[in-house]
């Protein structure tokens, strides 16, 4: 008697998005990255169903971070105030597939830097590395609307991934990303209904669904990861079920969220083990957990966590 086929099959698939433009396509990137394409749940179905390998976007901040714990800052101590060199280190030494340039320093409550600073940093990083860029605002609507259009323009033609747009603030950045030929990140606060709505709103402005990557917000291990996990899983199922407004690949912010956890930061906690191991482990565990729910781009920070997660991805996605 033959063994019955029990694998679930689906009609839909996660859409593929290619980031970065090489010289041939009018950009200056030396490589591109394609994400998405899964036709099943992670571990489900056949080898052909797995789609593209998930990738890691390593965070580079536009301004020297003030609040990073020592364990996280240490590996970057020579480059924290030099975004170009920082990015180069991530790509050349640490194996970053993408660089996520996070404009922390433009936030009015932080360094409150202006658009010319942001443009300068963007140009510096574009010059320093050949991988595609993710350009991520500070989260303050007003300031992002002032600065991010300029950033977008500075990277015009590079086919970056730019964000984020939300249900309440999407028009300015969607329009400029469309004009400058970038891909767009739509953000929702761990709310699948709003996630769908933001995609619809961007699409209504004429932004192609095939150039959108969604960000559902991320919860770290111990800090709401179960919500993030179930939303990612639900989005993947909706994509596989053919819901065209939910077929986008997914980005998640593991680095920032993991290093907020007290378990990752607290030095004086003898019962928890060595502090230099805890943070990287926390970050890696969060990433690997979300990978199993179905995410495509992971923002990460610590070199050891990146190495662990890359190793995991290579084992799982190459051996399937």
């Amino acid at each position, binding site marked *: 008697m033959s063994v019955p086929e029990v694998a679930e099959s689906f009609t839909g698939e996660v859409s593929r998005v290619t980031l970065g433009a090489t010289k041939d396509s009018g950009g200056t990137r030396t490589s591109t990255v394609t994400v998405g394409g899964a036709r099943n749940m992670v571990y489900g179905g056949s080898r052909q169903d797995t789609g593209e390998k998930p990738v890691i976007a390593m965070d580079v901040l536009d301004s020297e971070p003030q609040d990073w714990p020592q364990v996280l800052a240490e590996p970057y101590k020579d480059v924290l105030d030099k975004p170009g060199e920082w990015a180069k280190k991530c790509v050349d030494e640490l194996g970053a597939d993408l660089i996520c340039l996070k404009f922390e320093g433009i936030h009015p409550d932080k360094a409150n830097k202006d658009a010319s600073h942001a443009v300068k940093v963007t140009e510096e990083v574009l010059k320093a590395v050949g991988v595609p860029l993710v350009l991520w605002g500070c989260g303050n609507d007003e300031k992002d609307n002032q600065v991010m259009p300029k950033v977008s323009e500075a990277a015009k033609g590079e086919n970056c991934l730019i964000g984020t747009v939300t249900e309440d603030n999407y028009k300015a950045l969607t329009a400029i990303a469309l004009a400058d030929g970038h891909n767009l990140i739509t953000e929702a606060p761990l709310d699948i209904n709003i996630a769908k709505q933001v995609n619809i709103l961007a699409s209504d402005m004429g932004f192609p669904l095939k150039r959108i990557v969604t960000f559902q917000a991320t919860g770290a291990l111990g800090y709401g990861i179960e919500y993030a996990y179930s939303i990612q899983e639900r989005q993947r199922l909706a994509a596989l*079920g053919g819901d065209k407004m939910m077929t986008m690949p997914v980005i998640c912010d593991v680095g920032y969220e993991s290093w907020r956890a007290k378990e990752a930061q607290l030095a004086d906690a003898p019962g928890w083990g060595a502090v230099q191991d805890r943070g990287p482990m926390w970050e890696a565990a969060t990433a690997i957990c979300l990978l199993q729910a179905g995410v495509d781009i992971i923002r990460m920070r610590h070199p050891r966590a990146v190495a662990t997660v890359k190793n995991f991805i290579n084992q799982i996605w190459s051996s399937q």
Partner: protein
Amino acid sequence: MILIAERINGMFTNVKEAIAQKDKKVIQELAKKQTEAGAAYLDVNVGTAAADQEAAMQWLVETIQETCSTPLSLDSQKPNVIAAGLKVINAENGLILNSAPLNRKNDEEILDKYMEMANQAGPKANIITLTMDKNGVPQDIDTRVAIAAEIVQKAMEKGFDTQRLFIDPIVLPVKVPNAQVQPSSMLAAMDQIRYLADPPPHMTIGLSNLSQGATERCLINRVFLAMAVSHGLDSAIVDVLEEKLINALATAEMLMNKQIYSDSFLKVYKTAGKA
């Protein structure tokens, strides 16, 4: 919901005239409008008036395919008319043979013939099968389910993927003496039919028949469609141009958690793809 659009049917006067006068524009316009309204398949029925039904079917299929790539549902009770349509159809996008009963008094092998025709047309050819046999349309729940079970069993025996079956438990007009019990029997039958295979066979209905001759036809149709969705209906032959019907359907599917809610859920339903 896999919507099969019903308007290209010789029973409608404009289509009948278009067939008689070979007026392509009417047909192509209907194909376009129904596709835009969210049809997954366009039903093609030559009606009874055409002198040469085979030729009329071929003309319709060719006319539609000139301007539209939406898959077709070839609708006839006569296998030779469907076979004529199959000769000219582009089967790549999929198609439906609509429809065959389990068997007929004068043709015990009718379903086998349809399965054979579908297999020849390729792996994306589906069949609508009616829960009806040589004794006619069943009036009760159990016989409907029993016939559906025989259909599924036949498909399995012949290696015909049950995902290619659309089982139609047959909607009868509610305004017929003693027929008012039928809608609820159908729903009860559907509750059982969906467990006949895993994954379940598709279930479809020719919705408009329900309100034949009644007043408030649209209201009757859309309320029943919403009820049927809650019993596992995943396809229907309907007037996709009827906006209130599609809105009711979108709402029913959303309430059954088949579509993720968003504030624009009505607006995106047509483009959101099938559940």
